[in-house]
């Protein structure tokens, strides 16, 4: 597969209620690597196996939730082309100058009809994963610090106008629809899972009346065993757990949902099937959403539908 256009989820900026409590959580419990702090007080993290400077940024605020979600695109020409394509589609874009985020190039920012702020960028300093590029070891000791996911995998976002969001991702940004859950009347989509490569999803959206809500940011684990180990570490640190460990029917991924100290949900995720862009979309009826969410228990957990930040 020749990957062009949008390559992957790049960064999420999330609001927290108490910065130092959250730094402790993300660095020492989730096991992200702290890579910097900027003049505005934001703290930057990456997963141990990620090569770019940062993938998860927190800032202290008086509410929880997501400031924006950024996508790494192939190169500067792709950034300019997608900016023009978005504008031609009728979406207003804004340029954020290079350096506004540490070690990050110019960003193209726009707001989805769901109320979520998205960004595209082509440049972020490659700081590496601590492993040499010549004769690389399979892991470093950073893998054993805290839960230690290997990358920011995807996000699930809640807001209105999911059908319009789907069109923007599929018609402008080059994503394809991997799976969906139908609305109760079967005439629309209650939730959609979108991929820009061969991952089972890079972003998902669910229809929700309030705009711009964060359901969760998801972090990739290397194995089911590592998901169970994550659950052990959550309990050792009295992290509030929402759902799991279990396996989703949708995506087939293994999961635990839990909350950070400010009530931002996160996921430790492993697995999932590997779609291609020519595959037919898989569909779940609303009455089977319980299986889609939690395949063994077949339970549509109420918190999944109602608790967001």
């Amino acid at each position, binding site marked *: 597969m020749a990957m062009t256009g949008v390559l992957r989820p790049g960064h999420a900026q999330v609001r927290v*209620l108490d910065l130092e409590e959250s730094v402790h959580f993300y660095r020492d419990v989730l096991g992200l690597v702290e890579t910097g702090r900027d003049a505005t007080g934001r703290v930057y993290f990456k997963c141990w196996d990620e090569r770019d400077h940062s993938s998860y940024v927190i800032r202290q605020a008086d*509410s*929880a939730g997501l400031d924006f979600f950024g996508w790494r695109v192939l190169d500067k020409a792709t950034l300019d082309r997608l900016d023009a394509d978005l504008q031609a589609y009728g979406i207003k874009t804004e340029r954020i100058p290079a350096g506004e985020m540490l070690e990050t190039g110019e960003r193209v920012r726009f707001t989805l009809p769901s109320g979520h702020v998205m960004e595209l960028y082509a440049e972020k300093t490659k700081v590496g994963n601590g492993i040499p590029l010549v004769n690389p070891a399979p892991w470093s000791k950073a893998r054993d610090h805290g839960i230690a996911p290997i990358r920011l995998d995807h996000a699930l976002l809640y807001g209105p106008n999911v059908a319009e969001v789907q069109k923007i991702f599929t018609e402008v940004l080059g994503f394809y629809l991997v799976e969906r859950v139908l609305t109760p009347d079967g005439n629309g989509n209650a939730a959609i899972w979108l991929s820009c490569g061969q991952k089972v999803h890079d972003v998902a959206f669910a229809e929700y009346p309030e705009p711009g809500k964060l359901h969760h940011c998801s972090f990739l684990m290397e194995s089911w065993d590592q998901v169970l180990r994550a659950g052990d570490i959550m309990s050792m640190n009295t992290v509030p757990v929402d759902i799991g460990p279990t396996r989703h029917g949708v995506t087939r991924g293994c999961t635990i949902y839990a909350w950070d100290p*400010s*009530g931002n949900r996160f996921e430790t995720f492993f697995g999932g099937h590997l779609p291609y862009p020519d595959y037919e979309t898989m569909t779940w009826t609303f009455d089977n959403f319980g299986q889609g969410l939690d395949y063994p228990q077949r339970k549509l957990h109420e*918190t999944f539908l*109602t*608790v967001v930040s």
Partner: protein
Amino acid sequence: MPHMVRIEEAGVSYACAPRESLLEGMHRLGLRGIPVGCRGGGCGVCKIEVLAGEFHTRAMSREHVSDDDVAHQRLLACRVYPSSDLSLKVIGKLQKKVCTPVSVR
């Protein structure tokens, strides 16, 4: 020493230690359907109004708690800790769950 917390409309009381949030104590009651959400002051599902008693709080999302709410002690139970015996009423999403008899939930 735990303090006694009374949920006025439900007519039940529970013991809650000063280091425990009002939500943790309430959850231990085992009333069906108490919407325990994020437990971090971010999601806003566990809103209560403290009617009487002393307490201390930790940061909670101002998206769900306005200045007027603070003035009237309408707060998120997961971020409120008792310093004395308390009485409270549940509001918002909690109320329907706690104050509706099990038979009609």
